[in-house]
C-alpha cells in the first residue's frame, strides 16, 4: 500500500509539468494577446494608441518573445513561488486569487460533504427498500434534481429567502465582514452563509450520486455473498453496511478526482447569480481579457487540484478494494 502511494506521488511532478504545458498552450490559443484586447478596450472608449506604444507594451510584458521562452520564464517564476502580475488588474496574482481560492475550495468541500452525507444514505435506503414509497419518492425527487438547472434552484431559493425571511442571501459574508481581515467572527459569518450555496451547488450532484449509489447497491444486493452473510446469522443492517455498500461506493470514489474542478467550473453561473467571491467568475474574466498569467495560474491550480483529487481517490480505492491494491504491487 505504501509502495503504491509513493509510486503515485513520484508521478505527480511529471503530470503537473505536462499539464502546465497544456495550460500554457490553451491560454495562447485564442488569436491576439492581452495587448490586443487592451487596445480594443481603449479604442472603444475613444482613446487612440500608436504602434510604438503597442510595441513598448508588448516588450514590457514579454509578449514579443517566442512562445517557449515565455513558457520557461513563466514556469521559472512559478517554481520560485511567484505567480506574476495580472496584466488586467495590475496586481500580484497571488494577492488576487488567494482568498478567492480558499473560499472556492471551502465551498467545494462543503458541497462535497453535503452531497455525500445526503446522497449515500438515500441511495442505500432506496436500494434496500426497492419499490417502497421512500424509493419512489426519491426517484422522482432525483429526476427533478438532475433536470433543474442549478442557477434556477439558486434564483428560486434566493427569491424565497428574500420574500419570506427578508434576507438577501448573496455573497459568502455579511457586509461588515466582506473586506475585513480573517478573524473568528469572520469564520463564523462564513459558516452562516456558505451552507446555502453549498446546498444549491450540491443539489444536482446529490441527485446523481443517490441514483448511482442505488443502482450499484441493487447489483451488489443480488450477489451470493449476501445470502451467505445472511446464512451466518448477521443482522440485515450490519451486513448491508459491511459488505455490499463498500463495493457499491467504489465506483463513486473514483469520481472524487474531478470533483473539485467540476465544482469550480460548474459554479461560474451560480457564483455570478449569487455574487459569490469564488474563483470561477475571475477565471471567466481573465479569459475574456486574455490576462494570460492570471488565467494560466488559475488553470494550473485547477489541474493541480484535479491531479491531487485523483491521487486521493486512487488511494481510497486501493484501501477499499484489496484487488486493486494487489494489482498495483
Amino acid at each position, binding site marked *: 500500500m505504501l509502495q503504491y502511494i509513493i509510486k503515485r506521488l513520484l508521478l505527480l511532478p511529471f503530470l503537473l509539468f505536462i499539464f502546465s504545458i497544456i495550460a500554457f498552450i490553451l491560454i495562447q490559443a485564442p488569436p491576439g494577446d492581452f495587448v490586443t484586447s487592451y487596445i480594443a478596450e481603449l479604442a472603444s472608449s475613444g482613446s487612440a494608441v500608436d504602434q510604438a506604444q503597442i510595441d513598448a507594451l508588448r516588450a514590457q510584458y514579454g509578449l514579443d518573445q517566442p512562445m517557449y521562452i515565455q513558457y520557461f520564464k513563466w514556469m521559472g517564476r512559478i517554481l520560485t513561488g511567484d505567480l506574476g502580475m495580472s496584466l488586467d488588474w495590475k496586481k500580484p496574482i497571488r494577492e488576487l486569487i488567494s482568498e478567492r481560492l480558499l473560499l472556492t475550495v471551502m465551498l467545494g468541500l462543503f458541497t462535497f460533504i453535503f452531497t455525500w452525507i445526503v446522497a449515500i444514505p438515500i441511495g442505500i435506503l432506496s436500494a434496500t427498500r426497492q419499490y417502497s414509497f421512500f424509493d419512489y419518492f426519491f426517484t422522482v425527487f432525483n429526476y427533478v434534481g438532475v433536470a433543474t438547472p442549478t442557477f434556477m434552484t439558486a434564483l428560486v431559493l434566493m427569491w424565497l429567502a428574500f420574500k419570506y425571511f427578508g434576507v438577501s442571501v448573496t455573497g459568502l459574508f455579511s457586509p461588515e465582514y466582506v473586506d475585513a481581515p480573517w478573524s473568528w467572527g469572520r469564520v463564523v459569518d462564513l459558516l452562516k452563509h456558505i451552507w446555502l450555496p453549498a446546498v444549491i451547488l450540491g443539489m444536482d450532484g446529490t441527485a446523481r450520486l443517490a441514483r448511482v449509489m442505488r443502482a450499484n447497491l441493487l447489483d451488489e444486493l443480488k*450477489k*451470493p*455473498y449476501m*445470502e*451467505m*452473510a*445472511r*446464512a*451466518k*446469522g*448477521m*443482522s*440485515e443492517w450490519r451486513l448491508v453496511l*459491511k*459488505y455490499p455498500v*463498500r*463495493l457499491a461506493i467504489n465506483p463513486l470514489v473514483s469520481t472524487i478526482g474531478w470533483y473539485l474542478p467540476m465544482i469550480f467550473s460548474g459554479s461560474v453561473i451560480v457564483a455570478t447569480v449569487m455574487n459569490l467571491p469564488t474563483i470561477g467568475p475571475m477565471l471567466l474574466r481573465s479569459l475574456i481579457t486574455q490576462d494570460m498569467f492570471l488565467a494560466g495560474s488559475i488553470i494550473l491550480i485547477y489541474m493541480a487540484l484535479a491531479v491531487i483529487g485523483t491521487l486521493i481517490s486512487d488511494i481510497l480505492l486501493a484501501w*477499499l*478494494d*484489496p*484487488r486493486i491494491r*494487489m494489482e498495483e504491487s
Partner: protein
Amino acid sequence: MNQLPLLSVKNLKTYFDLDEGTVKAVDGVSFDVLPGQVVGIVGESGCGKSVTIKSVLRIVEKPGRIVEGEILFRHQPDDASEEQLIDLAKLKANGKTMRSIRGGEIALIPQEPMAAFSPVYTVGNQIMEAIMLHLPVSKQEARQRTIELLREVGVPMPERRVDAYSWELSGGLRQRAMIAMAISCNPRLLIADEPTTAIDVTTQAQILNLLRDLQQQHNTSIIFITHDLGVIAQIADYVVVMYLGRVMETGPVDDIFHNPQHPYTRALLKSIPSIRSQSRTLLPTIEGSIPHPFNRPPGCPFHPRCVDFMPGVCNVQTPVLQPVNERQAASCFLHHSIAEETLTAV
C-alpha cells in the same frame, strides 16, 4: 430407528408472487432429518431444492414467501436449558432466535464458494465474524479458532491463509474455507447446496470425503443437495427425490438405488450410464422437458413425461407421499390411491 428427528419439514409451500403469476417453487414438501443422518435431496435443476433449504434457513429472497407448512427444529437455546421444538416457519426471518439458529445451529455450505465470500475482506475476517456472532469469544480467540478450523479442513499453511482473500485461493481451498466457516460454530445441521458442482472431479471427491469425515467426528446431520445421483450414492444415508416443487420418493439410499418405487426415480437412475461416470447431465434419456414454472401440469406433476401415465387418473388428481413399504414412501398412483384433492375435501 426410533430417534426423534432433528428437523422435520411438513407440507412446506414457498411461492413467489411475480407479475406474470405465482411460481410455486416448493409445493408441499415433507421430509425428516435424524440426528447424525446425511439426507440427500436430488432432482433436476429448478425443482425447488435451493428454495426448500432457503426456506429452512429463512433466507428466501423477496417476493418469495412461505405460504404453508411447518419446519420443526430441535432448538438448543444459548442458556443451555432444555431443547425445545420450534417451528422455524413461524419465526421472524430476521429475528433474534432465527439469527442465532442460522449459522449457529444450522449452517450453510453454498454452491459457489467463489462468490459466497466477499472479495474485499479476508477469508479469516469472514470466518471470525461467523464465530463471534455465535460464540462468546474474543477476537484473538476467534482468530486462533479460525486457524485451527482451516487446519482441520485441510487448508495448508493456515496461519498464512487466514489473511488471504478468497480470490487468492484455488477453488478447492475456497470450498474448504467455506466448510471451515460452516462448521465454525459446531452446528447440529449442515446444509450443503451442491457444494461440489463448481470444482473439478478430483477435488470434488476430496471435499466429499472431508464432509463425510467431519460428519462422523462431530455426528452432525447433513442435508446434501445435488442433481448428481453419483454424489448421492457416495455420501447420503437417506434420499429425497424432488420434482417440480414436490417430493416424489423418499427412502434409504440402498433402496432408492436398488428398488426404486417411483417412475421418476427410475427414470433418473436410468439416465446415468454408470454411477462412476463424470457426466453431470442427467436428463437426455428422460422423455420430454421440465414444464415452465407458470405452466404446472394438473394432477401428478410428472405425468406428461411418465411412462406409466394413467389417463383420467394421473392428470386429474395429485398423488400424495405415502409409505409404500417399511422404508420407502412415494407419491404415485401406482402404489396407492390417496390424492391431495380427496384429502382436502374431507
